[in-house]
């Protein structure tokens, strides 16, 4: 079976050079920030694939490229076997109905001057899915699906709490009957009790409508709860991809292991949290070889010289010269 989403060698560079005149006067060359380098993965139909990483690891850039908000510098994205052609408006428009996005901040993602009815109906109207009274009926139905009431359609976003707004955003995402939803930190602006409501809702909707999710989050506990498979990003590169449960039991990449060790121990099991060494380097000037080598407890000379390519591990894949051996060394 072809995967629903297939990403090959995705790379995105941003030009962060100074203005032309400054470059001429100060004799500086152009500068690029590589937000993502050579990222490849696939998402199967009906699964939740999660991307985790710290700030600056390029999580959101990948999300934007997959939904077509940003064109990749290199690499290809296939959706349901069809290549996304960023140059062709018609091609993108046809694909766009089939995927939607839920953003982090429900205060920014909903237009404050629109009524909930219009916000939720926008994709239906834009794609011409329904006409006339059917639109209003569909909006009412969607609001009830996400746990609001039909009466809320006449209200404005400011009349709702953060959790309720995120429900509105989910209703809007569902309105074009998409197959695939990209959720970029959907709960990080919410309190834990509300986060639980939204995560449960997302799961219920997945079961009901057979949705496929790409979940982007910095919170490992959320990711573990929601995902079937997880990709770990570090400085724009995918360092490990593994089955969710096994990633936490048998991390293959030293960075994954470090991230896991840094999660606070809420169960008070006595697991000591190991403070991590150092910080994420500046992506404008990433370290040579494996970008993680300055913080890695296992780093050898080869790590400084060569960028490791992903290799197959028992749990998935990992880009480390010592993948699968970290248990022996540490």
């Amino acid at each position, binding site marked *: 079976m072809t995967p629903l989403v297939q990403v090959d060698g995705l790379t995105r560079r941003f030009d962060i050079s100074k203005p032309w005149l400054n470059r001429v006067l100060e004799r500086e060359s152009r500068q690029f920030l590589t937000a993502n380098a050579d990222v490849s993965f696939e998402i199967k139909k009906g699964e939740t694939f999660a991307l985790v990483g710290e700030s600056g690891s390029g999580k959101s850039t990948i999300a934007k490229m997959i939904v077509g908000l940003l064109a990749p510098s290199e690499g290809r994205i296939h959706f349901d076997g069809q290549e996304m052609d960023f140059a062709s408006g018609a091609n993108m428009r046809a694909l766009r109905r089939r995927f939607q996005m839920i953003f982090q901040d429900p205060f920014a993602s909903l237009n404050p001057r629109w009524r909930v009815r219009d916000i939720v109906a926008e994709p239906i109207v834009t794609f011409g899915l329904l006409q006339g009274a059917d639109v209003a009926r569909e909006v009412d139905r969607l609001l009830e699906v996400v746990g609001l009431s039909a009466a809320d359609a006449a209200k404005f976003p400011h009349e709702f709490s953060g959790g309720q707004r995120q429900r509105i955003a989910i209703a809007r995402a569902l309105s074009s009957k998409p197959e695939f939803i990209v959720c970029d930190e959907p709960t990080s602006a919410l309190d834990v*009790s509300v986060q639980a409501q939204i995560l449960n809702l997302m*799961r219920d909707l997945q079961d009901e409508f057979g949705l496929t999710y790409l979940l982007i989050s910095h919170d490992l506990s959320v990711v*573990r709860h929601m995902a079937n498979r997880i990709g770990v990003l570090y400085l724009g590169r995918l360092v490990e991809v593994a089955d969710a449960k096994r990633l936490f039991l048998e991390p293959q990449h030293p960075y994954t292991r470090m*991230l896991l060790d*840094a999660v606070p121990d809420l*169960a008070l099991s006595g697991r000591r949290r190991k403070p*991590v060494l150092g*910080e994420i380097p500046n992506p404008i000037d990433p370290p040579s070889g494996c970008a993680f080598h300055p913080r890695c407890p296992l780093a050898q000379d080869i790590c400084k010289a060569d960028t490791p390519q992903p290799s197959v591990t028992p749990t998935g894949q990992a880009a480390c010269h010592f993948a699968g051996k970290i248990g022996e060394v540490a």
Partner: protein
Amino acid sequence: MTGGKMQEPLLTVRDLIVEFPTRRGTLRALDQVSFDIAPGEVLGMVGESGAGKSLTGAAIIGLLEPPGRIAGGEIRLRGERIDNLPPEAMRRIRGRRIGMVFQDPLTSLNPLYTVAQQLIQTIRTHMDVSESEARKRAVGLLDRVGIPAAARRIDDYPHHFSGGMRQRVVIALALAAEPELVIADEPTTALDVSVQAQIIDVLKEICAERGASVMLITHDMGVIAETADRVAVLYAGRVAEIGPVRDVIQHARHPYTAGLMGAIPTLEQDSDRLVQIPGAMPRLNAIPTGCAFNPRCAHVFDRCRAERPILQRAAPNHHVACWLTEEGSA
């Protein structure tokens, strides 16, 4: 209230009421909040947004934003009242006897001054030492909070430091005058998990070393679990439960705390659904009569709607504001 302890508490907060007069009536943001902090103790303060965590901290250090005001109760530092001091006297306590660490290290450091200038000024404001002695202390502090090459980096400006390093500088600043109490308001919320662990460790160690008590305000139960000795759970401006961390986390007695704990996905347990507390925290102008949690509580009975539960002893050192506690069923 903590009872049984021979040691006099460092900070005592009794029936603290904070109100905001508005055109549509007075909003009560903190309602009879009481707790103690013992010398050398780390007290965690958790709650969701709007529960009054930060406001409690602001009231203690006398930095309530007008028109907010303390409308009742008292705050004592080593037995001496500090809630009604004139601004000049309070200014001498702030920084000197109570240090502060805020959430965003970028806004708590002045971008126009070097770290050295800010640290030296703080030290010399509160202590009678020479410029060179102050500088020596400042370098020592930076070194202690883990800034590499402190003697050189001290002359850098805040923007030269990364987020985690800046928060270390803020901790150094908070501890510069050797305060007895440090109020840390979401000190790690703006940081990545890997850096979060480092900052929590530094804060905890350095306070323990100097015998300073810490009031740690956070929404993150994980941080509380590994840092605090005792924890107070706030809900709608009231203390719902207060007790030793282990007791509160493993044997939560208040239905709100129990719900909150169940709502957090953890790395250790597998569950298909998270515990979900229905609804959201009430707005300040619509706090229900009786127990503020009663509309969301699964165990609600008539008394909860009529009468507000007071904090009562449920176990040694463990107090709960719930009518169920009195009934003996927890």
